[in-house]
């Protein structure tokens, strides 16, 4: 194990002089550095830093205030989720997948479930209402994720006000999530075959009120930042990455759309019935942080449009099933609000304990063993708030995945930090990273 002494004195190494800055007299340190002939110093913006959007380590080579080299170091949140999923059944894997990119849990789950459904061959058998609910949840999640991106991005650049507005909107959306799924974050709601349970009664009325409230409240952030001179000075021309750079580095999402290319998987390779919704793909042509910020603000409005259409469709499909009809795959439990919180509905218990032996066996086998997925591999992609999020699943015909790999947009997008920041100033790195909007849980998995 490499020894690291945080209180070591200044020492010479093969790489040059190393100064350990962990307290002590700042003046003595500065005068030491001033005496050195080298103009370049290497600074570690370590994993714990208020502005690096999570546990991201940036090793900067600075010449004065100009950055000559940025090397991002990741892996500080590596959880081994992919390996862990090989020891859980297909449905249990949803709870793991959802915690990867923790700002957009529904997208993780949907990508995973779409890939499983592709392997099972039931993509066309998913009930329409389940697809509509998935679209609704995904767009709500897009709003809550963009709110965090805007709020924390603004906070890192020094603006504290947008953070409060953004989290106020986010709380409204999280309350809706809690009403529908039971949890605010990491809901494990989208399951292979459909969704876990239907929307509660009267939810569509609540959703319409939510849309009205959000539409009104989004203007607060807009008025604060759009056209704000200081904000524009901090974000225009910063973090430039054009189309050639994006395609080389495999970058998708708002960063790609800020180059002017209207590439959105919801339009180009629709899934979950997205072809039936009317919405625009927002692009900007400035390739900078300000362009990406404007894209995210505009995508909020487009998400609201999709949600309104989804609410209408939900009213039209009221009462329809939300799980695939195949009893050998569909999660058998029907949850309802019971006396002790949440549990199986009494009708379901009456059926499995009283009348139908087959239902009881199905329930037991599906919960303990799970269903079997035929051997093969599948790749399913969704358009998450950060870009193309895809699940690549290999099955060996068993009840557990053989290998699950998630193609996370943040992993690719973060590689562009060097391209965006080198040659600029230290403060611009923060803006560039904030505009990429990486979620370190997704980067490290």
């Amino acid at each position, binding site marked *: 194990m490499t020894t*690291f002494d*945080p209180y070591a004195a200044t020492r010479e190494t093969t790489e040059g002089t190393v100064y350990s800055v*962990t*307290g002590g007299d700042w003046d003595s340190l500065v005068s030491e550095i001033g005496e050195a002939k080298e103009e370049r110093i290497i600074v570690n913006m*370590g*994993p*714990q*830093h*208020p502005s690096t959007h*999570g*546990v991201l380590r940036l090793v900067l080579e600075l010449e004065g205030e100009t950055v000559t080299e940025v090397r991002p170091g990741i*892996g*500080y*949140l*590596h*959880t*081994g*989720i992919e*390996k*862990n999923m090989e020891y859980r059944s297909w449905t249990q894997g949803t*709870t*793991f997948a959802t*915690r990867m990119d*923790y*700002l957009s849990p529904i997208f993780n789950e949907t990508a995973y479930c779409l890939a499983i459904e592709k392997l099972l061959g039931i993509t066309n058998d998913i009930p329409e209402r389940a697809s509509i609910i998935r679209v609704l949840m995904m767009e709500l999640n897009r709003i809550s994720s963009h709110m*965090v991106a805007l*709020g*924390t991005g603004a*906070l890192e650049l020094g603006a504290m006000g947008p*953070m*409060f507005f953004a*989290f*106020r909107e*986010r*709380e409204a959306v*999280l309350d809706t999530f809690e009403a529908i799924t039971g949890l*605010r*974050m*990491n809901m494990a709601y989208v399951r292979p075959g459909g969704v876990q349970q239907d929307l509660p009664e009267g939810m569509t009325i609540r959703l319409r009120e939510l849309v009205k409230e959000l539409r009104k409240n989004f203007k607060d952030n807009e008025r604060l930042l759009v056209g704000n001179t200081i904000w524009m000075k901090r974000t225009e021309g910063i973090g430039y990455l054009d189309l050639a750079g994006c395609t080389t580095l495999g970058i998708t999402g708002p960063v790609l759309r800020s180059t002017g290319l209207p590439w959105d998987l919801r339009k180009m390779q629709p899934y979950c019935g997205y072809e039936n919704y009317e919405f625009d793909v927002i692009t900007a042509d400035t390739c900078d942080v300000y362009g990406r910020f404007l894209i995210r603000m505009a995508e909020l409005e487009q998400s609201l449009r999709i949600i309104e259409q989804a609410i209408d469709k939900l009213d039209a499909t009221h009462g329809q099933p939300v799980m695939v009809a195949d009893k050998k795959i569909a999660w058998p439990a029907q949850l309802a609000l019971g006396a002790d919180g949440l549990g199986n509905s009494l009708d379901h218990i009456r059926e499995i304990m009283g009348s139908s032996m087959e239902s009881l066996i199905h329930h037991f086998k599906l919960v303990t063993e799970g269903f079997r997925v035929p051997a093969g591999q599948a790749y399913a992609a969704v358009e998450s708030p950060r870009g193309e999020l895809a699940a690549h699943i290999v099955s060996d015909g068993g009840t557990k995945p053989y290998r699950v790999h998630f193609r996370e947009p943040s992993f690719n997008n973060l590689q562009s930090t060097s391209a965006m920041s080198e040659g600029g100033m230290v403060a611009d790195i923060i803006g560039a990273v904030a505009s990429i909007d990486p979620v*370190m*849980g997704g980067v*490290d998995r």
Partner: protein
Amino acid sequence: MGLEEKLPSGILLSTVEGLAGYMRKSSVWPATFGLACCAIEMMALGSSPKHDISRFGMERFSASPRQADLMIVAGRVSQKMAPVLRQIYDQMTAPKWVISMGACASSGGMFNNYAIVQGVDHVVPVDIYLPGCPPRPEQLMDAIIKLHEQISDTKLGANREAVIKAVEQAALKAKPTIQLGNLPHEGMFA
């Protein structure tokens, strides 16, 4: 409060411990140690108008551990992050407290594997364990309130040394968790 009634108004009697505890608990500055999903709920507690942590005066999250009192370890601690966690804890000045927020920080949570430290108490001493995945902001607030009660009851001076001795004796006599249950085990008839 017989004596206070007889004294001229404006005089309050208290103990040094009480006053010190009161001061300390009202001015806790958390260190930003948000790692994963729990960090978002911690941010919601800190920045959303609905759950407002500035009611305690704690909205000023200190990025520099030198100025922080409380480290809320929010999220899963991976093997690579553990030395960093310890270094940040070491850099905090006493008095300092640790809340391990969430199941992953308290015990490794659902990630029982090679990559996650199974509980940050392997790395730093923890004062309050907060379960949840992620815990709601209200739950984190409850943990903070319980920590405030702990802080305000901290003994000082000779009393503190007595408390430390008593805790040490109790720890030496304590049985491991697995022997605490009712299942047949060695020494159950002791």
